[in-house]
């Protein structure tokens, strides 16, 4: 079995997060956007969906009966049906199940199902489970909340960042980046040096102006593996959010580190550099990879 470099995994996750965030931040389709690769991919996806055979309509009364039966096997079967069907109409049934309560096995499947359905309306039903005493349930609830992009998700995730469960904090920190919850930036900065490494990744996506300067200031104070998840997203963000000047200084610092991970990180950034990204920054990365100073033109 191939073993992947953990650094690669972290950078990969950060890039995925950035992609999600950029997609979320993208302007509505139409006009100039039609020509973009992302718009093309969405179109293809839509076409694929159009070609797929239509899914059978949910038998809501039967499912409701099964979910209220108190029979664990029947309930799990009904939840499977709802999840596989993907019909948003099933969400309300599952939300009602969460509202009544059930065994850990059933709750776990129900929360997962709501995550699959991804309905923002599920936020209210999921939120209490982010505080459940069973760690697996509250972690699943947080993941599902991120997937549903529920209006209350940001608030619940921020609250989870304050909790006593380290895994829960990690999920929350990552989710706050995915959901672009700018209001969480101060809390993410507080937990970053307190062993919540995932906060770096989210801050790399969320920070603006001085916040990004502050984030870069952690370079050298925190483990490089923690910071690298923040750096690539930061380098790939538009100049409106993160200035070229900061990026160039960051690239120069990485160059001066002269380490394999720093070099690898610059290579990753270059490989992923957006076509419409700043040429100055791209040139800076290229120069750094060749060993030249980014800031001193003459060298």
């Amino acid at each position: 079995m191939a073993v992947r470099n953990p650094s690669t995994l972290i950078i990969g996750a950060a890039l995925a997060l950035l992609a999600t965030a950029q997609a979320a931040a993208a302007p509505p389709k139409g006009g100039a956007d039609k020509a973009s690769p992302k718009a093309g991919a969405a179109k293809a996806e839509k076409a694929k969906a159009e070609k797929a055979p239509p899914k059978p309509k949910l038998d809501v009364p039967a499912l409701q009966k099964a979910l209220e039966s108190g029979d664990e096997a029947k309930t799990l079967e009904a939840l499977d049906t709802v999840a596989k069907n993907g019909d948003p109409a099933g969400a309300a049934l599952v939300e009602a199940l969460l509202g009544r309560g059930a065994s850990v096995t059933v709750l776990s499947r129900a929360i997962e199902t709501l995550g699959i359905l991804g309905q923002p309306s599920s936020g209210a039903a999921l939120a209490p489970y982010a505080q459940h005493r069973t760690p697996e349930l509250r972690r699943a609830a947080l993941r599902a909340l991120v997937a549903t992009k529920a209006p209350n998700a940001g608030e619940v995730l921020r609250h989870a960042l304050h909790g006593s469960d380290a895994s829960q904090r990690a999920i929350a920190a990552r989710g706050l980046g995915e959901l672009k919850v700018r209001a969480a930036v101060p809390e993410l900065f507080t937990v970053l040096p307190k062993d919540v490494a995932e906060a770096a990744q989210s801050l790399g996506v969320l920070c603006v102006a001085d916040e990004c300067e502050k984030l870069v200031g952690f370079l050298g104070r925190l483990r490089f593996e923690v910071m690298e998840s923040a750096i690539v997203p930061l380098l790939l963000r538009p100049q409106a959010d993160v200035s070229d000047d900061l990026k160039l200084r960051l690239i120069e610092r990485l160059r001066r580190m002269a380490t394999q991970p720093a070099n690898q990180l610059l290579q990753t950034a270059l490989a992923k550099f957006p076509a419409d990204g700043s040429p100055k920054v791209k040139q800076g990365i290229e120069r750094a990879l060749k060993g030249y100073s980014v800031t001193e033109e003459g060298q």
Partner: protein
Amino acid sequence: MRRSFSLLTALGLLPLTAACGGNLAQGVGAPFSETWQSDQGKSIAALEQKLHGAKSPAATPVAVGVTESSILGAALPDGKVWTHSGSADTLPIVAGDLVLASSAGKLFALESKSGKQLWSIDVEGRKLRGAGDDGTYTVAVVAGDNPGKSRFVAVSRSGDVVRQIDSTIDLGYPAVKGGVAFIPWSDQYVSAVDLKSGDELARLLLREIVSQARNYDGDLWFGERGLVRFDERIRLATTNQGTRIGLPARQLPGKPLWLGSGNQLWPVNSSARLKIRMAATPVAEGDSAHFTNHAYLASYFRVVIGLSDQDGSMKFVKSLSGDALGMSAGQHGFGVCDSSGKVSLLTEKGSDAGGADLGARLTACTVDVTALSVEGSQSPTPLAEQIGQALGELTPDMAVAQKLLVDELTKLDDPLVTKILIDLTSSVKIPPDLRSAARKLIATRRTGKEYMLAALERHYDYVSDVLLPPPLGPLSDALAAMNEVSATPLLARHLNDPANEMADVERAAVALGKLATPAEYEDLRTFFALYRATADEPSLVNAVVAVAGALLRIGGPGGKTLVERAAQDPLTQVDVKRGLNTLLTQPAAGDAPSAPPPAQKSPNVAQNGKRP
């Protein structure tokens, strides 16, 4: 046991060696004679009468610290710090306006206000054990580390040794008045020796251990655990009818001693003996005696406690920046010297009244304020607050002192006590045993509601470094016992906070079973939904059933339906289901949904009150 005494020398001062017994017809001859027959206090009474007008000078208020290489001092309350180059091997002693110390086989005297060395004599490897001064002569007992090498010396201001007595019997801590030295020995006698003649003029026989002869503000006292005053009643001391004073018996951490044995040396090292002591200054009033300030001090490393001389009750407490090395009780107020070099003056009520800083870390310290009246303008903070502050400043290795302070705290009615106990349970500096004790005590509190509610506002918060949740269980017990309905929204919020211990959540649920109002319905319903089928431990089962009881009471028909359905649902945990069915079969359950909480004590709450 072999007892031999030798009056070895009366060095070089012929006039002083001449017999001088003319004024004392009842003199008892050579010092420390074993053939002495009790004279029923006649000789000592006659001597007292003779010396009645004489008054030894009181000790100059001063603090004297010892470092590895020097002796530092400062006259109190506001003298400049002086330095004597060279250390001391035993605790320096303040005698009159001198500071006596020994080092490397020498005994030397420093002027207490300036540190100027007045004299130094060879004591052949011995170390200072005790000393006194009457303004003309300084007397001292020096001794070796092993028993049997006691030496008494009397030295004039110019440094001449006017009397020297070597003894194989251990001599105690001496005093001097009007040219007569008082030397305790054999834990039983005090021999009064005329410094000029060397004769024993009188002898006091006490029926209690006597190894100390002390001068407090010009008065002489003899004894060890208790002291008998050298006054007109001294004749009766043999039959325990003298003017006597002692400290009340009470348990204190480390079992501190007041004066300790006068037959021992007090080496200057980090021994705990120096740090666990008591200080008190006796004073006569008419035919009786009491202690100045009507109080005494007890130290236990970094804590100093002021205690009543009547019943030992705590009057004040102070934590120090270093271990307490020296203490003294003044005419009014106290002086304390600690290992950080700080000398603190305290008023008789324990308020800060300035002090001095000797400017170096100390290995030992002597402070003498027996003649000082400490004035202070600060009004003392309430005792509960003092205890709380001390508890907050103590390090975890001070568990014994912490326990004492907590015990004292619970004797107070002040509502502030509740806050202090809550703070203790929330501090990571507090050892687990003490935290547990504080939790137990919180459950018994019936005052300090505002502090309880404030504590419940707090939740575990990783971001803000609040890493211990409030003592939810004990607070729930107390608030339920107080029928404090205003606590219910806060308790309900804690119900659904997973950072709380399960046992605490159970107690909150039980309290809510008694106190909850319809306003808490949603929180209760959520809790019930989350755990009715997932309760995996008895505490959680109990909590769910208690919450169900509250839902029945305050939830109206909706609450009743909720509980009834849960009782029927096969997914509901089996023990929970049993509890729900019991609730549902109880008469009148849920009949008065909006009724105020019952006034009587809930049996569950009373039972839980015993838990930590």
